[in-house]
């Protein structure tokens, strides 16, 4: 892996190089990504049918929680879009493999920071995944276009990208930290799946969190998970307003910083345990 001549001012161009390398490498997975995105629409359609069946049994127009059927459908459509943009695809498995194979050794010798390096690869992976997933997702959205709503207001055009960016960072940092457990355990996949189970429920992937009892919903908002999906989607739909909005942004930022510190701490602790295998 050739790196450009390392002068202090070349910091950015060095990582730009990693970024473009990541894009080239993930292009190999494009068919895989396409299948993944297309197959992912099967359970999404099933969930939408299920909600339609539930609403059909109610008197016409009566909401569930604070959601009409149209609002419920647009919630799930936006979750799909945000998920396509931010979800980790192969990153955690690759990080675990890097540790197991001893590939992280080279980062201890090179002027590359492993976290920043992985972040660049994650971002390039997201660029490819999002552009590939756009084909099936756009096709699906077209059929559901009556439920697709415009951003809630002019301010949303600023707030939504901001919360999306922080969601992506948080998503990456959580996956990164869980994968670092490979320093201590043989097979990290169990931990990845356990973490993912909590994420699936508490991020709002399965259902919008505000159809839960109020106290449970409030409690979940203190965990990092809602800031991965539920919060950015809520910001876009304009469902999160006033003090809740600002409190949400503060908590999201706080979790990003906390996740970053935990990731750094785990990495330095892990290196102490690390014994390089191979040359």
């Amino acid at each position: 892996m050739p790196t450009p001549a390392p002068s202090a001012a070349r910091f950015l161009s060095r990582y730009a190089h990693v970024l473009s390398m990541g894009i080239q490498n993930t292009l190999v997975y494009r068919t895989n990504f396409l299948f993944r995105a297309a197959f992912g629409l099967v359970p999404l359609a099933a969930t939408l049918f299920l909600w339609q069946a539930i609403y059909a049994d109610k008197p016409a127009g009566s909401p569930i929680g604070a959601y009409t059927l149209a609002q419920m459908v647009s919630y799930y459509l936006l979750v799909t879009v945000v998920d396509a943009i931010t979800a980790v695809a192969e990153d955690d498995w690759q990080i675990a493999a890097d540790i197991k194979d001893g590939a992280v050794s080279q980062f201890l010798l090179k002027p590359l920071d492993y976290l920043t390096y992985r972040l660049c690869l994650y971002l390039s992976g997201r660029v490819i995944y999002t552009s590939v997933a756009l084909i099936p997702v756009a096709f699906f959205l077209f059929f559901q276009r009556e439920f697709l709503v415009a951003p809630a207001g002019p301010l949303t055009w600023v707030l939504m990208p901001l919360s999306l960016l922080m969601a992506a960072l948080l998503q990456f940092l959580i996956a990164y930290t869980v994968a670092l457990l490979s320093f201590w355990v043989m097979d990290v996949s169990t931990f990845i799946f356990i973490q993912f189970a909590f994420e699936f429920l508490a991020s709002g992937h399965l259902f919008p969190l505000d159809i839960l009892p109020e106290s449970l919903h409030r409690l979940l908002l203190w965990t990092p998970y809602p800031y991965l999906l539920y919060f950015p989607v809520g910001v876009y739909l304009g469902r999160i307003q006033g003090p809740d909005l600002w409190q949400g942004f503060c908590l999201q930022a706080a979790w990003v910083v906390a996740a970053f510190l935990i990731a750094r701490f785990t990495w330095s602790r892990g290196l102490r345990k690390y014994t390089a295998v191979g040359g």
Partner: protein
Amino acid sequence: MRHRLPSLSRYAGIYGALIRYSLIHEMQFKVNFLLWIVVEALWFGLQLAFMTVLYGHTDQIAGWSRWEVVLLVGCNQFIQQLFHMLFVTNLSNLSELIRKGTLDLLLLQPVNTRFLISVKKFEIGNIANALMGLAVVFYALAQLGRAPSPAQWVGFIVVCLAGLSVHYSLMFLLACVSFWTVRAQGIVWGYYNLFNIARLPAEAFPKGAYRAVFTWVLPMLLVSNVPAKLLAQRLASPWEWAALLLMAAACFIASEWVWRFSLRHYTSASA
């Protein structure tokens, strides 16, 4: 690939040895073994939690009451975990066997190759998760106040086996794609998404292309629905379980046909 007449006792002996080997292998990593049971139990809990949330807002979904849906989720878990125990690891591994050329070695064994590929590794831990599914089935039946007759239990076992066979045949069929593309993991992974719809009540889907495809092409809406309806005594007609048995046979024949076709096109990757 039939070198000899397959004698049942010979295959039972081979399977016994494979199970013993898998057990010894598994017991080397005891903590990991227990953690996988936890992982599967968590995801099962997640499915039940989802249904609990839904029924917090409604009394019935497409004519299914809360405990009928719990029964359905339990049946689905039971079948799915049996499938994991017997086949999933092995079928996911087919693309690796082809990529590395290990398949050659298996083709030379004096045993039916499809049999070896399908059952090589036995995942003992999933028994615990299958039993959790069964426990939920019993609990839901008690809540519904239903006590199925012995004949119904026999029928339940038969339709569960048919459902298992559908999952096996379809995933085997998908895994055969790796004879043509090297990276077939994405396709096998895709099967997990199909799984997800098997635990939903079929009646929730409007009559149309989606429901037709997942009943008559990829019969996901039959595999768990029919066993659950049988126990809940709400099968509309005997045609429902007949449809499952029919589709199980059709899927198996299709998978055997694709398997033979794929083998004829197999060019080894090894030297």
